Structure formats: C-alpha cells, structure tokens
C-alpha cells in the first residue's frame, strides 16, 4: 500500500493561504476551525520562510497515544483518522500534537470543546466512503475517489506536495538536485550561498 505523506517546500511557499481556503471550502469545515494554516517565520526579515502546516499523519501519533477514548486509527494508507462519535472533546490530542493540528469548535453554554476536527488527508472517517454521514462529519473523501488532497492539488507554486511518500520524495529529490544544494530537505541555505542561486 501507499504511505501517504505531506511535504511543504519552504523555498516555494509564498504564504498565499490558498491551501487553507481550499481545504475549508472542500470539506465545509465548521465555523472557527481551520484544518490547515500557513505559518511564516521571521516575517519581513531577509530570512522569512513560510510553511503550510496541518496534520502530518505521524507513524507514531502522539494524539492517538494520549486520547482517553482511543478514538484514533491509522488507515492502510498511513493516514491518521479519528472517530468523531467517540471523541469527547477533552483537548489532549491538541496538547500532545507537535503541529497543533487538532482543532475544536466551541460548543455548549460554558465554552465546552466540541468534537475534535483535523485534516483527514481528504480521506473522510470511519463511515462508509462518501456517505452523507461521513461527508457531514469529516468532509469529502477524495482518496476514495482516487484523488489526492485538494490543498496540494491546487497549490500554485507546488510547494505543498501530498501523496505516496516515495513519489513525494522523488519529486523533492529532483528539486534538490536542480538547486544544487547538498544540504537539508528544506533547501534553505541556497539563497544565502554566495556562489549559488544565480544571484552572482
């Protein structure tokens, strides 16, 4: 089986936030919840970098490990999904997640957390593929339709890559070769390299 992975190329991300918008629209995500976000580091500095972040579908997922009701599961494609019927909205997954992926709609009178919502790698949930119930809770199941996550599909600079880990790393390897950078998957040292980058 495929092993699904996201990869965001910091050399290419232009912080357009289209991935955030596309995801929110595709899955009709609840008010107040964004499954994906773009984080800009050193905004306005020469070292400014942006990355699009969502659930990275960890192999050994901390969210799953701390969940009091054990509502997470990993699909055959290596996608980490959760069962919203069992979720109690305790927030522990958010405390443990390295990427801040789990999000909670506000629910109830006293600011109770609602059921957790996060990136599904466009793979829905435990319900039948693309059933109305699945669609309402988790959004569209594009993987079941043979499509890849929309955020990456429509990324204008192809900074965000999604798909089988081998193919994603092949694409990224080509970029590393073309850039001539011998260091780092981020490719970040290039622009500061006095001999490279075609800047003279």
């Amino acid at each position: 089986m495929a092993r699904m992975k996201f990869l965001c190329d910091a050399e290419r991300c232009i912080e357009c936030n289209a991935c955030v918008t596309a995801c929110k629209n595709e899955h009709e995500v609840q008010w107040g919840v964004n499954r994906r976000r773009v984080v800009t580091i050193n905004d306005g500095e020469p070292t400014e970098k942006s990355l699009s972040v969502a659930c990275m579908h960890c192999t050994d997922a901390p969210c799953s490990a701390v969940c009091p009701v054990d509502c997470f599961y990993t699909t055959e494609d290596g996608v980490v999904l959760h069962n919203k019927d069992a979720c109690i909205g305790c927030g522990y997954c958010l405390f443990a997640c390295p990427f801040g992926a789990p999000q909670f709609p506000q629910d109830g009178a006293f600011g109770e957390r609602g059921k957790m919502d996060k990136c599904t790698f466009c793979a829905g949930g435990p319900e039948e593929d693309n059933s109305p119930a699945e669609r309402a809770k988790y959004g569209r199941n594009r993987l079941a339709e043979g499509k890849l996550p929309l955020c990456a599909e429509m990324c204008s600079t192809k900074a965000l890559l999604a798909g089988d880990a081998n193919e994603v790393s092949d694409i990224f390897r080509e970029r590393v070769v073309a850039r001539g950078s011998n260091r780092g998957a981020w490719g970040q040292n290039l622009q500061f390299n006095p001999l490279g980058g075609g800047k003279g």
Partner: protein
Amino acid sequence: MPRNALAVTAMRWWLGLIVSCCALFAAAPATAADAPKAPPGDAVADYWREVRQGVPGLSQVPGAERGVMINARGETWRQQRNGPLKRYGGMVLLAMLGIIVLFYLVKGPMKLSEPPTGRKIQRFTPFERFVHWGTAITFILMGLTGLAILFGRTVLGPLIGTDGLGGLLALGKLVHNYLGPLFLAFTILLIFAFVRDNVWQKCDGEWIAKAGGMFSSGAHVPSGRFNFGEKTWFWLGVTFLGLFVAGTGLLLNFPALIDRTRDLMQNLVLLHAIGAVLLLALSFGHIYMGTVGVEGALDSMKTGEVDETWAREHHALWYEDVKAGRSGRP
C-alpha cells in the same frame, strides 16, 4: 566630477566581470568539491532550530498559538502522562487499596469494647453533615470520572471498546467539568465548617507518640473532637490537596472561554492528576475509617448523633467536655 564618474563606471565593469567569472565557476561541473559553505553564524540553521523549539511565527489563521509551528513539549507531555503518571499513579492507588485490605484482614474493624448505653449525644450539626455529604458526593463523582479519563482506556477499553468508552466519557467529562466548581465550593465550606476543630491540641502529641493506638489492641488514645489522624486528613487532604486539585481543575475548565497556551494546559493536567491521585489515596483511608473501619462512624455522619460509649472510647476529651456542658470544640 567626470573623473569620478569614469572611475565609477570602470568599477561597475570590473564588478560585472568578477561576477560573471564567479557565475561561470559556479556553473562548472568541477565545483562539486567546492561545496558552498554555510554562511557565518548559520542564520538558517538557527531559525529552524528556533522553530523546533516552539518560537512563534505569524499566521493569518486566527486562534490561539496558530503562529507556533511546532509544539515543542507535546511529545514530552505524552511520555510523561502515558508513562510515569499512569504507572506510578496507578501503583500508588493500588498500593493504598492493598494496605487497607491487609489492615482490615489483620486488625479487622474497630468495635466498641463496651455495650452502647443507648444515650445519644450530637456530634455533627445538620449544616456540617450537609457540607460533608455535598463534598463527599461531588468528590466521589469527580474521582470516578477522573480515574476513567486517566485509566479508562487501559482498564475499560478492552471491555467496552472505543464507542462504549466514548459514550461513558462524554458523560463523564460533562460531570467532571460542571461539578468541579461545585466540589470547590463544597470544599471551601467544609474547611470553614471544621477548621476550628482541627487546631493543634496537647493530646495530639500523645496520639502521634502512640501512632493513634494503631499497633496496640483495645487501648484508645484520648482525643478532642477530632484526633490527629482526622486532623491530618483535614489539613493535608481536604485543605491542601482538595484546594490544589479543585483549583488546578478550575484553571483547566471552560477551555473556549479563555485561551490558554498548550504549555500551561500540559502542566495543569499533570499537576491536577498528581494531586488527584494523592488525594484519592488519602481518601481511601478516610472512607475506610468512616465506613467499615470503625463501628458507628458512619452513623455519626448519617444521623449526626453518636452513642455515649462511642464518644467516650473514641473521643474521650470531647466527650468529657460535652458532658460538662461545653461545646467540646478546642
């Protein structure tokens, strides 16, 4: 001025030539060995290191900590909660239960050595009983739901599955979150109701010296309205741990009304759980002594009255005080 202009133009030419040469060299395949060196101070490595350590950036997505790319302590918190907290917390609770069962099997319940007189004296006022049972009921509900949140997945999960656990804990979380503030209110009332009875008295020294008569059969150490064991429970359990656990719980509560950082929530969850495990362990002792451990103890809190024999044997100084027409309080 024209000479200066000429010099500038010449410099531009020279610079252009140098730059072109550099570009040629850079493009030559033979330069693989001359791999670019990292810039001095390596600003790039520095800022990725900062990202890894949780230094915040900027995000257009609104919400708390959305600009923080990496939640640096998340994995550590997972290890702390799933590791030592559950392991040692579970061991402390089971050990306490074991000690109490062993104590019951070896010593058995404390029975009255003389027959009851049938004459009753009041030990607790209706207000004291109301506050006690209010605290007790909320505490038991908080304890059961709290234990289910920490240990439910391990203990109940294999029996009732994810859906069963989800249903149980969805209710459990509501009970825990909404009754928590009530437990805090009852705890504060309880402290006010009993604080003047729990001050140090001379007889407490004797009680400590004889370890409460735990290892001598039949001989009661005379005590006031409450003995030193009860006072320990009052100060260490009810007052210190009770306020600590209820306080940290209140800070954890109402997540959507107040935005708190994940670091704060992680710490609060750990402190809350450690305090709660210790409070539960102490409460096992109190519950044992108040029910099966001491004959007549439960009746005193149920009816508010005790038999004179019970009062004389368990709280001799208090009994004498009350019989002499005083309040019996220190």
